[in-house]
């Protein structure tokens, strides 16, 4: 148990380096996440991102988000999701309330996957 919470703390710290004060995401055991990050996962499923980016974000007909999120800035990510990249087949989610209301959560979830801190695509709520 002690080892696990230490690991969780370490991951939180890693997440925190990405943003100034609040950690971007919190994760325990690789798949138990905070409420916002969980919403990010649900948004990922609702928007059916896996159809193109693969069930594990490793890319399919669309690029690997594990890789892309290492390169894209948050602003670039938001622009791509909002406006789409139509020629390349990326949907514009501007009209999707579910996606636009949760864009920060979606970013947190995908960043956690890209960082390797969230180790499986499917996540569940961490203990309160």
């Amino acid at each position, binding site marked *: 148990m002690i080892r696990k919470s230490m690991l969780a703390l370490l991951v939180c710290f890693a997440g925190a380096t990405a943003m100034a004060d609040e950690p971007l995401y919190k994760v325990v055991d690789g798949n138990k996440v905070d409420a916002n990050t969980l919403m990010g996962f649900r948004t990922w499923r609702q928007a059916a991102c896996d*159809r193109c980016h693969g069930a594990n974000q490793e890319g399919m007909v669309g690029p690997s988000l594990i890789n892309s999120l290492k390169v894209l800035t948050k602003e670039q990510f938001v622009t791509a999701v909002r406006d789409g990249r*139509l020629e390349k*087949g990326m949907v514009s*989610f501007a009209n999707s309330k579910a996606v636009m209301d949760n864009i920060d959560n979606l970013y947190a979830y995908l960043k956690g996957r890209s960082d390797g801190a969230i180790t499986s695509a499917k996540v569940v709520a961490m203990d309160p």
Partner: protein
Amino acid sequence: MRRVTRSSGGVVRRLGIALLALPALAFANADVEKNIANAKNWAMQAGDMFNQRYSRLNQINTGNVGKMQVAWTFSTGVLRGHEGSPLVIDGMMYLHSPFPNKVFAIDLDTQKIVWKYEPRQDPAVIPQMCCDTVNRGLAYAEGKVVLQQADSTLIALDAKTGKLLWSTKNGDPKLGAVNTNAPHIFKDKVITGISGGEWGVRGFIAAYNLSDGKLAWKGYSVGPDAEMLMDPGKTMTWTNGAMAPVGKDSSLKTWKGDQWKTGGGTTWGWYSYDKALNLMYYGTGNPSTWNPAQRPGDNKWSMTIFARDVDTGMAKWVYQMTPYDEWDFDGINEMILADITVKGKPTKALVHFDRNGFAYTMDRVTGALLVAEKYDPVVNWATGIDMKTGRPMTVAKYSTARNGPDVNTKGICPAALGTKDQQPAAFDPETKLFYVPTNHVCMDYEPFAVEYTAGQPYVGATLSMYPAPNSHGGMGNYITWDAGTGKIVQSKAEKFSVWSGALNTAGGLSCYGTLEGFLKCVDKKDINKELFKFKTPSGIIGNVFSYEHKGKQYIGVFSGIGGWAGIGMAAGLEKDTDGLGAVGGYRELNQYTELGGSLTVFALPN
């Protein structure tokens, strides 16, 4: 537009109109029939109106096919998945491409491009196309080439000049209603469907006049009787071992509230037509969403075989294969019409290899269910079809509805892409067997709650797919099937899904393409005898076709990997748990092929 009245007077009036119009219509049909009758042509996507995919040419045969060589090739200049095939009519080839849906007319004397047409389409439709930007080909009649564009616009071009003759809008792409299917010309009508089951599109089949592109009729798959062109007292369905009328509100009763409005049942497959009965046949797709918990009920008439009168659109009979779908087993695969012996009795049959892993033999006149058997032994979601009720006998542990949302139901066979997807089978009138390109893939399926937003994806399940466990390790089989008894005659293992339409010929051949990019011709009397094999530039998901020009027989096929076959294999790569499964399979496909659309045409050496 209301075209159906419940009064018998309305029916009589319509019949009267149809009868009066018949003499003129017979001519309209005659051109396509004449083109089909000439075995040198490949005048329809399936070669004929029965969807048989059989060529009467026999210059290339079992004895000499081994010497076959590439005669010529043609690049479409488009990279994505190339389904369907070109058409050949009187020395001219008409060729299509995936989005942007270019059309070429090529003079077979010189292989020179006589004209080229490229529609202007909003690129916003690209991301709306499920499973790649494929197009399944053109239709031809009376000097018109008909293209069903991705953005749902249906157009007719002058076959001589490529000039636009008419254009009509078939759906609203902003709501996800796009098209991938080939238009089909039956009588004086252009028949087309719609895609978008993963966007909550309510499916329909529509008939437009070949002469001017005006809508003649439109029949929805789900909803009120009038909009489905269904007569509660006369449209029949298999009930308790016999045909009986569907009754009032047969669809509405099987949906919760208004859900039928975003209920799917799209129609993107291959249609067939029996002139003698004046009936056209097609199948409808999955109900939306993929999360069954959200749409209790049988969701009629999704997953259904439809027989409709071509003149009026009225549904003559229907048969729902997968009530309350829990696995995305779209029922859109081709309906093959064949006159065969079924259980000892000569029968005007309709044979259909469904995504759900069962092959159905129906009486195409009445709609009676005759045979329903698994055409891949690994199919496990149902033990069989109850021949009295016509319903599948489902297995609880593979029920994604019973297991519920957010539970991953594992080991379901077949996978969502079905024991067979759209890749059409062939029927051989000599051997009386069906030659079926199949998938041998299973899946894990986890449904979850989704909200409908107009114009946004509406899926509701995460899937991972992998080769059928405890089998030969490959993801496909090429089989021969006896539809009269419901039995596999021969099965030839393939490394990958066979996602290419089959062609049989009077030369004793059965030919198909593979995802690695091989065109293969086997002996139709023993499909394990591989007589010819050639590696084309890319993986093949197109359909094999044949034509004759200046005394020489040619066999051709599109290559150009893509479609659900190309991307589906990569679905859900669970690095940590899957081991070699799909990861291995897909990576290996990458060792064989890259994107790139081209046509390869073969002939015997001079």
